[in-house]
């Protein structure tokens, strides 16, 4: 249940740590609430500090504070109903940043994600995640 001003943890290696939701994209059905697998627009509220040495390497920080980016929700505190009728909920809200082509901005994911993502067409994220529940 992600809406305007919701803060989410960013669990990829794009450099963002905490992002704030400013818009839910194309989701009129749920009255503007986003759930796992939904695309949102976020503002980066907290990012890893940019250092010159790290900038040249692969793990370069790609975003800074105040950047506006697309993201996809991967975990929610709100219960999400599975197709088989069971429910799943997590301890926090989390997202993964995307570029304009709906591809991942980072190259890695550092946390558990919901397997509902695969059903919604985010198989790439599911395959990168260290654990899927």
């Amino acid at each position, binding site marked *: 249940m992600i809406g305007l001003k919701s803060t989410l943890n960013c669990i990829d290696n794009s450099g963002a740590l905490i992002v704030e939701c400013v818009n839910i994209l194309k989701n009129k059905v749920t009255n503007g609430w986003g759930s796992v697998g939904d695309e949102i627009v976020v503002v980066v509220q907290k990012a890893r500090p940019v250092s010159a040495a790290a900038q040249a390497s692969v793990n370069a920080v790609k975003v800074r504070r105040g950047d506006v980016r697309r993201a996809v929700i991967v975990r929610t505190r709100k219960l999400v109903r599975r197709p*088989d009728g*069971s*429910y*799943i*909920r*997590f*301890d926090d809200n989390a997202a993964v940043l995307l570029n304009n082509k709906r591809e991942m901005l980072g190259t890695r994911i550092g946390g558990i994600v919901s397997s509902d993502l695969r059903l919604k067409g985010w198989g790439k994220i599911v395959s990168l995640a260290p654990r899927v*529940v």
Partner: protein
Amino acid sequence: MASLTRKARRREAYSMKLEIDSFSGYRIYPSKGKLFVRGDSKVFRFASSKNASLFLQRKNPRKIAWTVVYRKMHKKGITEEVAKKRSRKTVKHQRGIVGADLATIAARRNQTAAVRTQQRLAAITKAKTEKKEKEVKKAKPQRPVAASGPKVSKQQMKGGKAGR
């Protein structure tokens, strides 16, 4: 009847994946229950909201009388199983092995010493007579070796004109 029960068991094993409630130890049937993933990415499954609630209240299942853990701790309803385990015994069993089935083994075991010595004597005498016969046979054939066939030169064998 036995086949029927086995079939039923197989059906259960294949078609249903039962989960275990992390608080109470109850079974969770498909399409039931809630999954809770904690911040340290530990997964907890609850069969009912009662279990979920008690877990979130940080209650200890060992202190709640109806949970499986409690009942196991206080040995509730497991008297039959214990009795069954005690009755189990190792049974010595005889069976045939390679090259000797059970019947021959049993026959050997039931032989008396006298029979065995008799057999041994018989075998010895038999071997002796055979040896004697062999010696007699050996003594007879003392023919000269290699005296058959006309002599052919090697050159011819390799092929003169006839070979072409």
